């Protein structure tokens, strides 16, 4: 089994064992099973899957890095959220908020980080639509 932990600056988001983990990287999805060679990879904003015998859990992650050594995967990300925890009202409100801020924002750096955040919530929205 793979040992997986997802860590954001604010908290340990998720920590469990998994049979297979699918990571969204710049060059496409990488599926990891036990015995995979050590790996350090950059993640892009996207969908991460944690697959077990009978179930699978899907996460939206906001970019980051992953390190895999001896069947232990550590994922560093700004933010990650499981599709099980998504709530339509929260996402909608966040998107509206960000769009408003984006319209008011003047600095280029701020716009960039805001639009990334917007993408993150849009991804959550589409995952939610897919789930139901």
């Amino acid at each position: 089994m793979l040992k997986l932990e997802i860590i954001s600056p604010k908290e340990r988001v998720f920590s469990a064992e998994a049979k297979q983990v699918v990571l969204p990287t710049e060059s496409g999805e990488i599926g990891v099973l036990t015995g995979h060679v050590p790996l350090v990879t950059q993640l892009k904003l996207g969908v991460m899957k944690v697959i077990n015998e009978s179930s699978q859990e899907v996460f939206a992650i906001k970019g980051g890095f992953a390190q895999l050594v001896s069947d232990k995967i550590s994922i560093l990300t700004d933010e990650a959220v499981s599709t099980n925890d998504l709530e339509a009202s929260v996402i909608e409100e966040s998107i509206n908020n960000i769009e408003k801020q984006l319209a008011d924002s003047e600095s280029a750096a701020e716009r960039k980080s805001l639009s990334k955040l917007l993408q993150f919530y849009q991804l959550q929205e589409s995952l939610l639509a897919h789930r139901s």
Partner: protein
Amino acid sequence: MANLRDIRRRIKSVKNTRQITRAMQLVSSSKMKRAQDSAIAGRPYSLILANMLNTVSTAYKISGETIEHPFFQAREVKRRGIIMLSSDKGLCGPLNTNLFRLITEEVKGDASFFSVGKKGAQFIQREGLDLEVAYEISDKAETNEVSPLVEAAIEAYKSGKVDTLEIAYPSFINVLIQKPVIMPLLPILDLETLLEQLKNKIKGESELAIEDSRAIAFEPSPVEILEQLPDLYVNFMIYQMILESRASEYSARMVAMKAATDNASKLVDSLTLDYNKARQAAITQEILEIAAASAA
């Protein structure tokens, strides 16, 4: 013997002060809890980030290539860059003073300061040190408040304005002890010692994976990862230190205000004793006068 009314007035004013210091103590203790939690929550992230950086740079060195990234290159130190994290408000015991003393002792040569907090900016001005920029970051320490500081500091390092980046901050050891330290951040030279320190701090909260002898694969490539990772590292470390200095500030303030409240209570006790003595003396005096008058 002091005037009765004067003593009463003093007791009242000391009690008022005690009320204020007690309120401040309670406020800081609840803020401290939150700041402490968020500082501790960030530690596993910093450990794994440092570990990852170590893995990548070691793999790089083994392959015989030198790392081109400016963050890994030691330059001759002509001017140090110091990010100083102090508090905006006073009344937090010796927290800021200790930090300033450390700076005066340790920083002798040329140095540019990036200051966070009003107290630090005042100190730099008073001492006539080189202030690069001063920031004020609110209690919440949102990422978008911190990023201008990080960008300015990284820019100064990249452009060669400063040859090191160091953070001077009150490190949070426990509620009673905050130790001022100057932590080197750039250039990144000795990741192993840093990892050791981080591990000691975290103690079992998060374990690192055991070594794997197989060659490490990098996706997309070590070069590209090395472009992103050091920036993230510096960014996060500064953010983490800010959180930690917040936790230090609130615990120092809580302890200082607790001491002030206790002192006020003691003062009220001794003043009350004085007041009663004075009152008793006045009564005795009056009785004596009446007795003397009736005897006459």
